[in-house]
């Protein structure tokens, strides 16, 4: 079991290079609203997360991930 805070920190590090607006990232930060990512950025970021954790985040699952907290939950579930 990966610690939730540790997972958040790892994902936050992956978000930073894409965080062009320099938003202060919390679990409540939304990808479309707060970070204002377009579909291309989302694709690049998802690929980055997938490669870092050696997982696949299907588009079905992506549709349910709106904020960073959702992503932490999803990646934890896929890696545990």
């Amino acid at each position, binding site marked *: 079991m990966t610690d939730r805070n540790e997972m958040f920190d790892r994902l936050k590090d992956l978000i930073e290079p894409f965080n062009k607006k320099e938003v202060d990232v919390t679990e409540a930060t939304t990808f479309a609203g707060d970070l204002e990512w*377009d*579909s*291309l950025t989302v*694709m690049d970021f998802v*690929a980055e997360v*997938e*490669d870092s954790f*050696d*997982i*696949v985040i*299907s*588009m*079905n*699952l992506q549709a349910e991930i709106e904020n960073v907290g959702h992503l932490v939950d999803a990646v934890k579930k896929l890696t545990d």
Partner: protein
Amino acid sequence: MTDLFSKFDALIAQREGLLATGVKDPFSLVMEEVKSPTVAVCNGKETILLGTYNYMGMTFDDDVIAAGKKALDEFGAGTTGSRVLNGTFQGHKECEDALKEFYDMKHAMVFSTGYQANLGIISTIAGKGDYIILDIDSHASIYDGCKMGDAEIVAFRHNDVEALEKRLKRLPAEAGKLVVLEGVYSMLGDVAPLKEMIRVSKEAGAMVLVDEAHSMGFIGENGRGVAEEQGVLDDVDFVIGTFSKSVGTVGGFCVSNHPKFEIMRLVCRPYVFTASLPPAVVACSATSIRKLMHNSNKRAHLWENSKTLHKGLRDLGFQLGTPEAQSAIIAVIMPDLEKGAAMWEALLANGLYVNLARPPATPAGMTLLRCSLCAEHTSEQVSDILDRFERAGKAVGII
């Protein structure tokens, strides 16, 4: 009451903003007269058509038209029925026979449009617990097929063999997998590295579907598409195609050697729950498909046209979607939507029709002027086209 249309407000505003700059609406053009596969009358002006996907110019072929007229006389205007009830006429079987011969495959299934062929096959064969692995730049009909089915959808970066392979390896070994690829991608006109992609797909135990809509009739030794050209057609489980491009009519199909393929006629809803193609359309299509088997001269001329246009546009200083001509689609990249719409209108004023393509249909948020060549474009027309691009490009300030 919540107005259900409020979700379109941003698009409505963008469209109004564009039209307020004085450009004509690029999405409401009417062709008043169509003179040939390459010439129509638009806004009262004779216009060269360079955005029709009518690659082989079969729309006005004498034999194709004669077959359609005969079928209209003998079988009537429509079938008024589903393929599985009263909607399968002699012509539908002849069309499927022509496809089987064209692709040298055991099974062929004709749909009412190419869109429905992707929608039907993809949503039906990949079910709950299965995975569909697709290129991120896939056509809308592929995405809609995914959305209609119950499979898990996994996307990989456009034409990236390594990204595909990595994702395939991460999926459960025992799960059913369908890899969906296109031979030619219609926005930029680029070709997929099918040979490598199909190899890694097969190694991962996946079935492979290739949409060859934009390659039929002129890519590959027998015009069977990019998979044939790259020597891997035997490893493709399902080829999807359309009649609305090289064949010159309307309709879609899937050909396959899968031993159980015929069951699709009973379980594929976009095949069952819609009316079949009219008799004239299937008669025209069957005749056209058979003629497409033998026309290497026309193919050679189409390639010559494509290469000449690509080089000419590049020499004029336009930015193009591919470094060289890879198909009969040449995509000219515009700086933004406003300039793209202005250039489109300037070309039309110069008597040249191309497609204006913009997000979300285009990759990477690009605005494109998409040109598709026809085997019936003469060399003089191609040089005219280049002159018109030069005049319009200078007037709009793109070159």
